[in-house]
């Protein structure tokens, strides 16, 4: 067997032994629609996404040992980016992705223990992660972000949109939003500030919540918590009917009316009053959580 034949055999043998092994640093690009959908999946590590002016999806990946394949494919208006890992060993394989997408794209991003950071993407965003953090911006298109133990941070630009944020133990921070918001958490805290809503629904089990925003006339604010404290501080004047009830918490009301006992023999308190013309509706319910109601 001559030298070149031995080399060829060795190359073939290596290819057979390790078919999944690929280079650590990989760069891939595909053409994309200017406002198509980009689906991205990376089990562990990090995902950075930014919008750019080109009609192209560009992926720079630092792939972990054991990654089977980096898939970057286009199918019509959809582009798929996926770090494929063996199902049984996925926990130990961490990859970092830096992705650029057309700035009007919608994105659908998933990770298990992957941090997600998004910048300058103008389309809709659907973001799901188990234990990583999510940091993103919104520009008027709907955002749905959910995490189990990671924090969620969303900055808007005061354009009308639907925002749905949910975490289990992670904290939620949402700023400069307008339109509708639904925010839920079990033990994480929720802060919603510098915003204006027609409809806002905020729920926690043990997490505290702060709502410092404007409630637009005709709007609706629903807050519910079991043990968390509630701090509502309206931006500017508010015109609303208030219906507040707590089973065992305290109520502090800067608007004047005092809470009343719901029963002589039980600890419950309720507070019902109208401020301004009563154009909006505010409903707050807590089991043990204390409540502060004020305006700037």
């Amino acid at each position, binding site marked *: 067997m001559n030298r070149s034949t031995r080399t060829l055999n060795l190359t073939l043998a290596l290819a057979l032994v390790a078919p999944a092994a690929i280079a650590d640093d990989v760069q891939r690009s595909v053409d994309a629609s200017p406002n198509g959908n980009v*689906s991205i999946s990376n*089990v562990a590590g990090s995902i950075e996404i930014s919008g750019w002016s080109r009609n192209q999806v560009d992926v720079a990946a630092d792939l972990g040992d054991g990654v089977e394949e980096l898939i970057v494919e286009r199918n019509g208006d959809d582009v798929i980016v996926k770090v494929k890992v063996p199902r049984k060993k996925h926990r130990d394989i961490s990859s970092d992705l830096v992705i650029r997408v057309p700035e009007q794209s919608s994105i659908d991003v998933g990770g298990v223990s992957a941090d997600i950071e998004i910048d300058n993407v103008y389309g809709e965003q659907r973001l799901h992660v188990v234990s990583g953090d999510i940091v993103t911006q919104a520009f008027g298109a709907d955002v749905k972000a*959910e995490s*189990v133990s990671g924090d969620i941070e969303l900055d808007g630009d005061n354009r009308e949109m639907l925002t749905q944020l949910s975490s*289990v133990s992670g904290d939620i921070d949402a700023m400069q939003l307008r339109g509708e918001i639904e925010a839920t958490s*079990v033990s994480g805290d929720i802060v919603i500030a510098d915003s204006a809503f027609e409809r806002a629904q905020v729920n926690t089990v*043990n997490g505290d919540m702060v709502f410092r925003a404007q409630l637009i006339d005709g709007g609706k604010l629903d807050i519910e918590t079991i043990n968390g404290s509630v701090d509502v501080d309206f931006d500017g004047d508010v015109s609303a009917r208030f219906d507040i009830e707590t089973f065992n918490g305290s109520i502090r009301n800067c608007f004047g009316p005092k809470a009343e006992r719901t029963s002589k023999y039980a600890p419950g308190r309720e507070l019902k009053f109208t401020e301004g013309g009563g154009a909006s509706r505010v409903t707050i319910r807590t089991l043990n959580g204390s409540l502060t109601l004020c305006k700037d």
Partner: protein
Amino acid sequence: MNDRDREQFDDELTAKARELAGDVEPERDLWPGIHAAIHESMQGPAATASVFGASFQRYLAQAAAVILLVGGSSGLTYLAISGDRDNVSPVAAGIELPLDAVSASFGSQYTLGPDFQDARRNVEGRLETELERLSPEARAEVEANIETIRTAIAEINKALAEEPDNVLLQQLLLSSYQEELAVMRKVNGITNTVMLRDDI
């Protein structure tokens, strides 16, 4: 004692009896309250409406509670079933769950029904499978938070046992069950979305 003596004795006894106080003030007199209640109820339509209103409100609250419970538990059952109907793992039914299920009862009077319990068990069974895919830290985090919700449910149930007609407690309990299901389904959904997607 002859008849005359007997008559004299009776007269003296009667005279002594007359010397006793005509009425005795009880230590805790309930009459003023009873009298006031009767007086109020006889004051005319306004007072009658007030008494009627109070009992009507109570019936209304109870009716609202029943509607809330029936509607709420049906909704929860739908929530538990919808979306999972096609995905229920056949293995899930046989799994012994380490996450102890709390009593799904509304205070001392109501239950969520067998359909809800079945659906909940299915979601819980799937969760157990999905949790195995997570790191020990993430798994512990999920379990701790589900335990937080279950502690809240137990706490509300305890309060409901004292006040079965409390609508606030009913609402909070329903929300807590909803939240428990939502968390379980969320974990199932995210891990499925990321790891089991065949479309990408």
